[in-house]
Each structure stands twice: as C-alpha cells, then as structure tokens.
C-alpha cells in the first residue's frame, strides 16, 4: 500500500511517478510531487519509482493570479 494525499492506494511494483499520476488521472505537468516529504523534480517523474509504503503528496495547481 501507499498513501496519496492521505488516501490508501494499491502499490504497483516498479510503478514510476509518471505511472502513478496517469493511474490517478492527474494532469502533468501541473503538479508538485513529494515522496516521503522530498520533492521529486518533474524531469525525474518517468524514472523514479514509488516505493511500497510511501507517503505521496500530489499538489495540483490551477492557473490564475
């Protein structure tokens, strides 16, 4: 299991950050992602795996300012 924004989700072996975002229908590149409190740079989304037990924060931004 992993936790995404406080909600329990299945852990998928070898799933990358990009894969997780796709599975949860988040729109890249409009999100900040933290795994266990550490920011994952956008460039690394396709290469960084989400480990089992991870606490993931996906922070979505919308335009306007």
């Amino acid at each position, binding site marked *: 299991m992993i936790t995404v924004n406080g909600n329990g989700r299945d852990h998928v072996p070898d799933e990358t950050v990009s894969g997780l975002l796709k599975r949860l229908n988040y729109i890249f*590149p*409009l*999100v*900040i992602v*933290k795994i266990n*409190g550490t*920011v994952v*740079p*956008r460039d690394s989304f396709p290469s960084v795996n989400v480990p089992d037990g991870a606490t993931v*924060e996906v*922070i*979505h*931004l*919308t*335009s*306007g*300012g």
Partner: protein
Amino acid sequence: MQNSEITARLKEASVGIAGAGGLGSNVAMTLARAGVGRLVIVDMDLVEKGNLDRQCFFLDQVGMPKVEALKENIERAVEGVVVDAREVMLDEGSMDEPFRDVDIIVEALDLAETKVRLIEEVLIKLPKTPIVAASGVGGIGGSERVSLRVSGTLYLIEDPHGIPCEEGILTGPKVGLMAHWQANTVMEILLGGSCE
C-alpha cells in the same frame, strides 16, 4: 507579543513576490501597509486597462511596467518600505535567483505551469525559505472552500474547485481574498504564529 515587537519584527523582514498581477499587487500593498520592511517584486508585464478590476493600479498607470507602478503606489501609501522592483522574466533554471536573500517568497504568478516551476525550484534550491502559493483563484464565491494546505515549507492557499483562469473569470473579490489569505499567512510565518 507586544505591538512594538510585532512592528520591529516586520520592519526587519523581507518578502519576495513573484508576479505583480491580481495576487502580487494586492499582497505587496497589504504587506507594505502592515509594515514589512523590504519587498522584492518581480514581474515583466505592463499595466493594462483590463487589469484594473482586480489589480492595485490606476487608470493613469496604464502602459507602465507593473513593478514600477506598484512601487509608486506603495510609496504613495506608506513611508519607509524598501521596494526592490525588478522588471525581469523569471527564467526556468534560475527562478529562485531574485529571492535568495528574502525571508519568505510569495508565488503570485498566473499560469499553472509557471507556478509549478517556481515552487519546485524554490523547494529544491532554497529548502529553508517558506513559499506561500495560491491555486484556484478564478471564479466567484466559494469562500468556504478556501483553505491553507501546509507541506513542509510550502504553504498553499487553495480552492480545489476554483475555476482555472483559462476557463473562467478573475474578479477582484475572489482574487483579493486569495491574495490577502497569502499575506496573512506570510504575517503568521514572519511572527512565528498567529496572534489572537
């Protein structure tokens, strides 16, 4: 905390503001009035007539660089605030550069992608500097949906159902609500907690 201590702490503080539009111009003005000593404001746009429904500018400033007009307005409103107005583009890879010596950064940009780039760069390159951002600025009403989300040094004022500006409208009351919520959060961080 005594009023005199609050005044002294704010006077010593410096706040960087990325963007001088609906969020940034209002954040800057209210923090200046509150007594923050130094503001570093970065924007490269000119004041347009269509901005005046929600941004802290005047009719006779249309066509001026926003940072220059905002500095002028702040200096008309209050004494003793140092306004470091920078008419430059925030370039990817060095977006943190103007803000390396400030106590807190306010994300007051327009496009979601630019917001994400700035926040990400600040979190990685300036890990000790709090950044106060806003999302869901568009639309009317929905005040009860707005909340503060804290994740490490990121403080996000968000309306999860706020309409992206590409799809909806930006109005002074909603934009001002988000801007003042950002400014209030800046005050709380600078003073080390809420004052009741």
